[in-house]
């Protein structure tokens, strides 16, 4: 049984559906990358999983349970976590408080998890008392990921984690994602840097018009001439 | 849509007939004149909120300004004042005001002679202070002198309709100043800023005894149409005179209302209205298309306020007394809001309907509540719980509760109002 499985998901914001039947399956050991042109429904897929928009058809099964249209405060304790693309830190709160907010649904002692996050991002440990709004773009992205990891998720979803970052940080963020995956967290992410992200993806999905167009491992998709021509810019 | 409106207006007509039958025609005719004035005021708010999306919580201030204006224009002149030193002293105060204003304006341009930043700030504060002290040094003795010798400045003895117009002009002036200061603000700030200004207006009018007689009140203020007493003097019966004179006033009010409504509808159907809707619905987009959003919003704020000033003046003319302490935010600001919300923001027929309906509900709440209380009281006395004390005081307060109930129900179940805005398709 896959960790998460989307079967023919249809959904939108009340008007015409944006997703017209998306299929996806991710194991805990997978790094799934969604690519596709603008308006293909990439981010919308993540939001649909996370209950941020109305799912009107199909099923979303997480660990064997249908979670379609559940709200985040129910999903986070089940092991899902989401890093939005923009405004993904609490700017007026310190780094440490940001991390604590990620652990809001946990009633147990989360100090160990926090140590784990600080090991993963040593720079955050240094700036733990600083307001997150004062950090650089790359550091903010780390705070956002750290916050999402505080709930000890089994599936981490990221919406364009490399957007707006300098090339040095892009590589660092991708390396971290791989490291997190090695620690047993399934990854499902949307990326604009398609070629770079597909290179380490164990599952790649090309969406267009709210539907799957191509599915395969990352390297397979990169090798596919048709994908390369239409979606990866030649 | 048309059918729905017609049904609603027919229902309103029946309600008026019922009220007339139960509470008597003299009572009802008075309430109808007031309702016409309120309809004018509601239309002013409809322009501001329904058309422009501007939040005005300071309606009371504009009504008071209108009332003060019509009192000043139409009340007979006070010769004692004109023969005293009062006008001279007031002239000096006016001069002091002008000098003060000149100083403040001059300092605003201080950067031309190289004073900028912090120093300009200090200078600005200083200029305001000097101007304020200068004005106070002249107006305080003038006010004290007038109050002790002639009481107040009196009126000008002009025609009441002139007073209504002056009310509109004065309201426009104040709205212009407020608009200049506040229209850039977001909605909630605008609401609070306008409340504040109306409170200042109230404080001023209430305490400037030399100009408005303050809490001493001014009466009787003349009517633009023949008074019942005049008709009675002409040999008419009391009831008939009352009805006919009020009918005359009502007719005049309706004529004003009809002219205003015709003008607004014409303007709103044309390019001006189209621009207003564009600005309200998306002022970022409108601004990027090169429309001067703030100037248009200022226009709309001033136009709306003019109607409020005229309406406020009409009300004072009709009741013949100007009593600054009778003005309350609940009765003179929130009541108008309820009219617009219930009637339908953005639709003048909705504003008219809402104004008349809510005004009638407002005035019949008290007798209705009294009737209910008396019934309950009778019943509770019979079963030995004793009568309800102070029924008169309590039933007078019932209307505030009813008003709140009406607005919350309307927001919940008819958020666009009973006669909603007709969304026009722009080609």
């Amino acid at each position, binding site marked *: 049984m896959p960790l998460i499985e989307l079967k023919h998901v249809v959904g939108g914001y009340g008007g015409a559906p944006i997703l017209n039947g998306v299929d996806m399956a991710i194991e805990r050991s997978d790094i799934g990358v969604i690519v596709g042109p603008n308006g293909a429904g990439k981010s919308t897929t993540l939001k649909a999983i996370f209950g941020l928009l109305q799912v009107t058809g199909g099923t979303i099964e997480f660990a064997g349970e249908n979670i379609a249209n559940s709200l*985040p405060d129910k999903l986070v304790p089940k092991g899902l976590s989401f890093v939005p693309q923009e405004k993904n830190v609490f700017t007026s709160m310190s780094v440490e408080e940001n991390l604590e907010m990620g652990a809001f649904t946990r009633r147990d002692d989360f100090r160990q998890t926090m140590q784990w996050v600080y090991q993963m991002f040593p720079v955050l440990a240094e700036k733990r008392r600083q307001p997150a709004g004062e950090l650089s773009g790359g550091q903010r992205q780390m705070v956002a990921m750290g916050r999402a990891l505080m709930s000890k998720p089994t599936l981490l979803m990221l919406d364009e984690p490399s957007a707006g970052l300098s090339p040095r940080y892009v590589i660092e963020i991708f390396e971290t994602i791989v490291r997190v995956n090695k620690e047993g967290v399934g990854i499902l992410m949307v990326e604009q840097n398609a070629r770079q992200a597909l290179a380490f993806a164990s599952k790649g999905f090309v969406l267009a018009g709210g539907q799957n167009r191509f599915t395969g491992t990352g390297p397979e998709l990169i090798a596919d001439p048709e994908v390369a021509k239409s979606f990866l810019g030649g | 849509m048309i059918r729905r409106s017609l049904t609603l207006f027919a229902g309103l007509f029946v309600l008026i007939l019922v009220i007339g039958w139960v509470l008597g025609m003299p009572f009802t005719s008075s309430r109808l004149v007031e309702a016409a004035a309120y309809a004018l005021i509601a239309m002013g708010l409809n322009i501001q909120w329904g058309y422009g999306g501007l939040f005005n919580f300071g309606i009371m201030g504009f009504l008071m300004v209108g009332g003060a204006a019509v009192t000043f224009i139409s009340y007979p002149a006070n010769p004692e004042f004109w023969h005293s030193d009062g006008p001279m002293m007031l002239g000096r105060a006016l001069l002091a005001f002008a000098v003060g204003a000149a100083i403040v304006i001059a300092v605003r341009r201080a950067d031309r002679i190289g004073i900028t930043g912090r120093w300009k700030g200090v200078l600005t504060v200083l200029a305001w202070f000097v101007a304020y002290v200068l004005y106070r040094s002249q107006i305080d003795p003038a006010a004290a002198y007038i109050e002790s010798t002639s009481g107040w400045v009196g009126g000008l003895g002009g025609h009441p309709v002139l007073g209504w117009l002056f009310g509109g002009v004065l309201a426009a002036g104040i709205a212009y100043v407020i608009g200049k200061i506040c229209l850039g603000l977001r909605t909630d700030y605008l609401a609070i800023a306008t*409340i504040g200004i109306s409170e200042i207006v109230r*404080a001023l009018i209430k305490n400037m005894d030399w100009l408005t007689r303050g809490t001493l009140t001014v009466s009787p203020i003349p009517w633009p149409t023949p008074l019942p007493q005049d008709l009675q003097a002409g040999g008419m019966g009391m009831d008939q005179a009352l009805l006919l004179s009020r009918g005359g006033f009502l007719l005049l009010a309706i004529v004003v209302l009809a002219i205003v409504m015709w003008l607004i509808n014409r303007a709103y159907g044309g390019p001006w209205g189209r621009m207003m809707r564009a600005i309200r619905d998306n002022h970022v987009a409108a601004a990027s298309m090169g429309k001067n959003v703030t100037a248009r919003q200022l226009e709309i704020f001033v136009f709306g306020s003019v109607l409020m000033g005229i309406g406020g003046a009409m009300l004072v003319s009709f009741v013949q007394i100007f009593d600054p302490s009778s003005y309350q935010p609940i009765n003179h600001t929130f009541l108008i809001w309820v009219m617009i919300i219930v009637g339908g923001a953005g639709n003048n027929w909705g504003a008219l309907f809402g104004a008349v309906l809510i005004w009638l509900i407002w005035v019949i709440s008290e007798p209705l509540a009294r009737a209910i209380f008396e019934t309950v009281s009778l019943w509770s006395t019979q079963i030995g719980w004793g009568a309800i004390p102070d029924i008169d005081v309590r039933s007078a307060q019932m209307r*505030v509760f009813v008003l709140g109930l009406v607005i919350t129900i309307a927001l919940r179940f008819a958020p666009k109002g009973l006669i909603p805005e007709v969304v026009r398709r722009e080609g």
Partner: protein
Amino acid sequence: MTEIIFFINQVVISGLVLGCIYALGAIGITLIFGILRFAHFAHSELMTGGAFIAFLLAAAFASWGIVTPIPTGFVVLPLAMVLTAILSLGIDKGFYAPLRKRGAKPVTLLIASIGVTLMVQGLIRLFFGTGTYSFFDTEPKEIFRIDTAFLGSTRPLVITEPQVLMILVTLVSVVALHFFLTRSRLGKAMRAMADNADLAQVSGINTALVVRVTWVIAGALACMAGTMLALDVTLKPDLAFNIILPIFAAAIVGGLGQAYGAIAGGLLIGFAETLAVFNWTMLFRPLNAILPDWLQLPPTLALVPTEYKLTVAFVILVVTLLVRPTGIFKGASS
């Protein structure tokens, strides 16, 4: 020295008391704005309603013959705060929550809060009429007169028992609120939601719970502010309706959404109002002895006549909006 003591009596103490009341009211307004993004006009009615609840409880205590060492108003305050908190939860559930669910704009909620204002106001007037009530009908209002002759003053320092308690209680609540917001899980969640409501939801924060906590705090503090105002002056149905403007001014001057800003703004407005109507001649009168005849101080030398006290808050508000619209502590901007 006499003059300085007079200044302390007239300005420092009354400014502080007024500032405390404004601050407590403004905290509630600012928290509600931070979490729910609308200007809650009915806050004045929570204050008045809370004061009447406290008054009824105090009257009940008196009728049971319970005598307390401190004014009964303060003894019943915790219970009244709980009841007012429940009342505000009820108001939210009955009037605001359905509109939020529909996705109504903040402006609609603002208008709804006007409706609530009218209803509560109407109900209070229906039951209590329009007269004034006093907490001190059944017990004396103790007044401390501290003799300051040792400082060379002929005037005592005057402060009433409720005023002392009021300042203490405000201080305790503000400190408690500070610890709640910076140390507790829910308090931090409240700050998180005020900072970024969407992210708070995504983080799994139970936003409905945060909303409830906000109403509980706002309602409890409103009750405290209203009761204190009633203890300091008298209780009447339009008790807080008349001061909602300075309270909003305090919240905006402090920066909407900023709890600490509301405290600073409240004190600022409180002192500004008191200072503006203070008759400075009373303080500088000794100077008349050394000033030449043509420069004698007039009998009244106040910046603003007392009748215009309310306008002071408003002038400060307008200046703030023009010069620094985000307020002292950067809040929501225009």
